[in-house]
């Protein structure tokens, strides 16, 4: 399966040139861009690990692309995403987020159903990969 979180997951994987253009778009909007990675792609896993702090005063996408290359070198076996944060009043949150790196294999999720009173069902979504400890889930870089 292919996890379709983020803004561009239905398109072919972005080239570095395409990623750079999106980063530049964020910077021109005045947003701080950061890089996050995880090996727990559960849809409600909000807090991916941060690759350093958001780059608040960056002007050129090249700075992010350099960090992304480094992050991929270390965590290339995991999901990596780029996020743009808008600090303006009334938003103060993420404006864009898109995946820029995926594990070679994406085993996806198991849906557990617990039958409870009446016909009600309690659902749990579990990433197959997350049954293993963090760092051992996608076979290393």
């Amino acid at each position, binding site marked *: *399966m292919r*996890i*379709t*979180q983020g*803004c*561009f*997951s*239905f*398109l*072919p994987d972005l080239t570095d040139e*395409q990623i750079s*253009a*999106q980063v530049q*778009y964020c910077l021109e909007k005045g947003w701080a861009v950061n890089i996050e990675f995880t090996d727990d*792609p*559960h*849809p*409600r896993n*909000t807090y991916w690990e941060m690759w350093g702090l958001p780059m608040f005063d960056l002007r050129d996408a090249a700075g992010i692309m350099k960090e992304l290359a480094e992050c991929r070198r270390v965590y290339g076996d995991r999901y990596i995403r780029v*996020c*743009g944060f808008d600090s303006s*009043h*009334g*938003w*103060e*949150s*993420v*404006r*864009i*987020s*898109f995946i820029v790196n995926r594990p070679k294999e994406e085993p*996806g*999720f*198991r*849906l557990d159903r617990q039958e409870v009173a009446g*016909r*009600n*069902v*309690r*659902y749990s*979504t579990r*990433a197959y990969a997350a049954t293993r400890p963090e760092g051992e889930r996608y076979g290393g870089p």
Partner: protein
Amino acid sequence: MNDQSITVRGRERYRSGVMEYRRMGYWEPGYEPKDTDVIALFRVTPQDGVDPAEACAAVAGESSTATWTVVWTDRLTAAEKYRAKCYRVDPVPNSPGSYFAYIAYDLDLFEPGSIANLTASIIGNVFGFKPLKALRLEDMRLPVAYVKTFQGPATGIVVERERLDKFGRPLLGATVKPKLGLSGRNYGRVVYEALKGGLDFTKDDENINSQPFMHWRERYLYCMEAVNRAQAATGEIKGSYLNVTAATMEDMYERAEFARGLGSVIIMIDLVIGYTAIQSMAKWARRNDMVLHLHRAGHSTYTRQRNHGVSFRVIAKWMRLAGVDHIHAGTVVGKLEGDPNTTRGYYDICREDFNPTKLEHGVFFDQHWASLNKMMPVASGGIHAGQMHQLLDLLGEDVVLQFGGGTIGHPRGIQAGATANRVALEAMIMARNEGRDYVHEGPEILAKAAKTCTPLREALEVWKDVTFNYESTDSPDFVPTASAAA
């Protein structure tokens, strides 16, 4: 027209009998509205022979303190404060016999935080007043002091996006079709296919409640099975607007609680349940971390004709106060009424913290929202993937684009239809962010994306000639004039 006050004062004012409204204190051309006044702008069409100022004063009177005759009991009150004051009357451009009446109401006339009370005054009696041929409430200025007495949208655009983990693009939805007749099991099939194919939301239609072919519990159970299956299949948060509209509040609470118990992120109500029920559900939604979708069922009965009724921009303002998170606000290019400039005005009312006066969009007042949450506008009705560049240009990024027929009607099935829409959207967002002239290059961008996406290619082929070009019945009265520098 906007000359001197002719209000009768002192003892003469209260002599028993009938007196013209404009002499009773409801026509005060010198009045300067206070920052705390509620201001209403009406389009007044008096009966032939009725003086415009008198007609407008009558609207002020009948929507505040007046009755048809002088009453001495006025003298027991601070009557001058409580009288609504028409302070300006302008002829409507290109519309002989109609007038814009600006009327100011003191804040003390209204119960805090109650749309029912606000509307009982402003549109309560006056629309049936005999000396008027027609009357339309065009716009309102709601003072910050009053705005702050309302909860506002239960969730708001930003928190909704955070909860759904979806940023940087419009959300995608589809209304399940056919809107009546599917069993719960078949209904859930449509939901599953559409969500798995790439939509974020599916939606109950306005008239799906609990009917012989599908009891509401069946629908909820199968929809949530579908939602959870699709979440597991994609790794994305998905939702289906479960319509909780019902005959009584008790029924609606029961349905909403069942939806919550099943883990739904969103419920839905219809405008026809009424303002008080809407506010109750908005409070419930805030207490229960639920996004609240409003379908504006019924609104066209009073919003569509330009001479009589209530403009949708006013309904949108009331709904932002009342506290819904989603509101249908038009598509411009789709099958339902929607002039581009007027629709733009609605979208601004939903999404901005401050609306400057913009007559060309039908926005007559500066409106501060005082950090009240933003409402997500929903564009639904006769739109398809081939219009993606126009939709993004006209409606922006914070909107739910609902492709019902444009998903379910895809020749290769619902998943393919959903995928076509999602690919078209992502390709368009990417092109826009790259700085391309996506409005003009839209068809090329879509064609290129379709090279690697067969469903999109098929969608573009099937719906390539579909447009809905009819003249709008509700367009702004003012057009921008080119400035000398332009």
